[in-house]
C-alpha cells in the first residue's frame, strides 16, 4: 500500500466537457423547431404539414452532425453555442416556410418560396462549421494571416461596387447561373481576424502613449491613424455601396475591440462622435439613406406615397397587433410587409405571431450567444483569442442590434439580416462559420491543462505517531 499523492496543485475547477448537455439541448432545439413547423401547418391548413418529417429529419441531421463533430474535434467547447444556433436556424426555417405559404407574398413578382433553399444553405453553413472545426486545429494559426485577412476583407468589401445595385444597395456579387452572395457577411469574420491580430501588437502604444486632457486620455496623432482609416473606409462603403448596416457593423466592431484592447473610455467617446458625424454627413446628401431616415422619423406620414415609409408602418403595425402573447404561429398578417418580409423584416413576423414574449425570448437567445462569446473571451488564455472572441461576438451583437433596432423603429432601418433567422444564404453560412470559430476558441479556453509529469520527490512518507 503506498501513499498515493504528495504534490498537489490548486486551480479552477475544470469545466467538464458537457457534451451530453449539448446533445440534450440540440435535441430540444430540434424538437421546438418541429413543433413550430407543425404549429404553422395546423394553423394554416388544419393538418400536419406534409414536409414535416423531411424538415425535422433534415434539421436533426444538421444538428447531429455538428454535435458529433464538436464531440470529436472540440471536446471541451462551450455547450450552449451549438444548441442556440441550431434553435435559431430551425425556427428561422419554420418562419420562412410560414411566409412561403402566404398568398399575398406568392402573388408578388419578386417573391420565391425560400424554405427548401434555406435548408440547403443551412446544410452548407453546417458544412463550413464542420470544416472550420476540422481544419482549424488552433485559432492562433489565424494570427499568422493578420495582414492577408486585411487584404481579403478589403477585396470582399470593394467587389460589390463593380456589380449592379439591387434594392438600392450594392452589397451583392452576382454570378450568373449560380446566384448572388453578400460578401459583407464573410468580410465581418475576416476583418475581426485582422483587427485582433493588429490590436494585439499595437495595444500598448494605443493604451499608454496618450496625454490626459479634461479627464480624458487623448491618443497621439499617429496612433489615431488606424481608427481614422477604418472610419474613412466605412464611410466610403456607406457612400459607394449605400450600405449603412455594414459600415456601422465594421466601425462599431473596431471601436469595441479597441476599447477591449486598451481599456480606454476615450476611444468609445471618439468612436461614437465619429460615427455620428459620419452618419449625419452621409445622410444629408445620400438619397438612399435619406429615404430610410424619412421612413424612420415618421413612417405613417408617407402612407401610400412613400414605399419605404409604408413598409416601415406595416412592420410597426405587425408588432402592435402581436401584443403580448402574439396571434399564434401562422395566424398573423405580417406578410402585409410584402417585400423582404422573410429576410430583413422576419423579426416582425416573430413580433406579430409570438408577441412580445416571443420577441424577448428570441432576443435572449441572441443575447445568450453573445454572452457565451464574451465568456469565451474571458476564459481564453491568449490575447489574440480573447480579442477575436470579443470581436466576433461584438459583431454578432451589433448586427442583432442594428437589425432589430431598425425593424422596431429605434434607429433608421438598414439592410442587414437577422443572423440565422432571415432567409439568405450568405448570412446563414457566414454565421455558422462564426459560431465554429467561437467554438474552437472556447474549446481551447476550457480545455483542462495537461497533467504535469509525476514529480520525482513524491516519495512515501512514514508517519510516526506519538
Amino acid at each position, binding site marked *: 500500500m503506498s501513499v498515493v499523492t504528495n504534490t*498537489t*496543485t*490548486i486551480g*479552477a475547477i475544470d469545466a467538464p466537457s458537457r457534451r451530453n448537455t449539448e446533445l440534450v439541448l440540440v435535441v430540444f432545439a430540434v424538437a421546438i423547431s418541429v413543433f413550430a413547423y407543425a404549429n404553422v401547418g395546423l394553423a394554416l391548413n388544419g393538418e400536419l404539414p406534409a414536409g414535416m418529417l423531411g424538415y425535422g429529419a433534415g434539421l436533426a441531421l444538421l444538428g447531429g452532425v455538428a454535435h458529433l463533430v464538436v464531440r470529436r474535434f472540440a471536446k471541451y467547447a462551450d455547450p450552449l453555442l451549438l444548441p442556440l444556433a441550431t434553435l435559431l436556424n430551425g425556427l428561422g426555417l419554420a418562419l420562412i416556410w410560414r411566409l412561403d405559404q402566404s398568398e399575398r407574398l406568392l402573388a408578388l413578382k419578386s417573391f420565391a418560396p425560400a424554405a427548401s433553399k434555406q435548408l440547403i444553405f443551412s446544410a452548407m453553413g453546417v458544412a463550413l462549421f464542420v470544416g472550420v472545426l476540422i481544419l482549424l486545429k488552433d485559432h492562433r494559426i489565424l494570427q499568422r494571416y493578420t495582414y492577408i485577412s486585411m487584404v481579403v476583407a478589403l477585396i470582399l468589401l470593394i467587389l460589390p461596387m463593380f456589380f449592379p445595385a439591387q434594392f438600392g444597395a450594392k452589397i451583392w456579387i452576382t454570378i450568373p447561373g449560380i446566384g448572388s452572395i453578400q460578401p459583407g457577411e464573410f468580410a465581418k469574420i475576416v476583418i475581426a481576424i485582422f483587427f485582433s491580430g493588429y490590436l494585439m501588437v499595437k495595444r500598448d502604444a494605443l493604451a499608454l502613449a496618450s496625454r490626459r486632457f479634461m479627464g480624458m486620455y487623448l491618443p497621439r496623432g499617429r496612433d489615431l491613424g488606424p481608427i481614422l482609416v477604418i472610419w474613412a473606409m466605412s464611410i466610403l462603403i456607406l457612400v459607394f455601396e449605400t450600405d449603412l448596416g455594414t459600415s456601422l457593423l465594421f466601425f462599431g466592431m473596431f471601436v469595441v475591440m479597441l476599447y477591449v484592447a486598451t481599456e480606454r473610455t476615450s476611444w468609445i467617446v471618439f468612436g461614437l462622435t465619429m460615427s455620428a458625424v459620419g452618419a449625419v454627413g452621409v445622410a444629408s446628401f445620400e438619397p438612399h439613406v435619406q429615404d430610410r431616415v424619412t421612413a424612420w422619423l415618421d413612417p405613417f406620414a408617407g402612407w401610400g406615397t412613400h414605399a419605404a415609409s409604408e413598409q416601415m408602418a406595416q412592420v410597426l403595425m405587425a408588432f402592435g397587433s402581436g401584443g403580448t402573447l402574439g396571434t399564434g*404561429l401562422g395566424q398573423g398578417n405580417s406578410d402585409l410587409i410584402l417585400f423582404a418580409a422573410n429576410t430583413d423584416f422576419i423579426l416582425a413576423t416573430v413580433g406579430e405571431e409570438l408577441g412580445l414574449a*416571443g420577441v424577448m425570448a428570441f432576443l435572449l*437567445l441572441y443575447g445568450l450567444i453573445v454572452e457565451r462569446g464574451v*465568456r469565451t473571451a474571458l476564459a481564453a488564455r491568449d490575447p489574440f483569442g480573447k480579442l477575436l472572441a470579443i470581436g466576433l461576438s461584438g459583431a454578432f451583437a451589433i448586427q442583432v442590434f442594428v437589425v432589430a433596432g431598425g425593424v422596431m423603429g429605434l434607429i433608421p432601418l438598414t439592410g442587414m439580416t437577422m443572423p440565422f433567422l432571415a432567409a439568405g444564404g450568405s448570412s446563414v453560412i457566414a454565421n455558422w462559420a462564426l459560431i465554429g470559430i467561437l467554438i474552437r476558441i472556447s474549446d481551447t479556453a476550457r480545455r483542462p491543462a495537461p497533467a*504535469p509529469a509525476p514529480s520525482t520527490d513524491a516519495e512515501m512518507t512514514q508517519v510516526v*505517531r506519538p
Partner: protein
Amino acid sequence: MSELTLTVMRLGFLAVLWLFVIVAVQVIRSDLFGTRVTQRGSRRGAAETRPQQGRQQQQAAPPQQRQQPGRQRRGAPTKLVVSEGSLTGTTVALQGQTITLGRAHDSTIVLDDDYASSRHARIYPDRDGQWIVEDLGSTNGTYLERTRLTTPTPVPLGAPIRIGKTVIELRK
C-alpha cells in the same frame, strides 16, 4: 382546427421557447464553480475519469484509499480554510491528497508572507484518514494551537495552525 387547440398550441409554444431559454441559463451555472485541488502525477487513468467530474469529491479520492475501512469516518474534516492572513477565505477541499504550504510557487497554498519559508509545512492524511501537520524545517516554525511543532502531529477539527501571519484550520 378548433380555436382552443390553436390557443393551447400558441401558449404552449411560448412556454417551450422560454423553457429552452431557462434551461440554457441553468447550464451557464456550470461556469460558476470555485477552485479545486488536482493531484499531480498519481492518478493513473486520469483521462478516463475526466468526463465524470460532476462527482469530483468521490472521483478525486484515489481508489486505493477509498477502499480502506474507516476512511470516510464520521467527523472527518472535508475542507481546509484559511481564517487569517492575506488569503483569508480560501478553502481547499480535502480529498486525501497532501497539501503543501509555503512561498514556493508549486505549493498548494502559496503563502505571500514574509515569515513563511518557501517550503514551510504540509498537511496530509495518514493511513487511517487522520490529518497530520508536519513542519518542513521552516525558519519561523509552525504552531498548532500555541505549541510549536517538532514532530508530525495529528490535527483536531478546528484547531488553528499558524504560519507567520496566516492561520488555517480544518473544518467539516
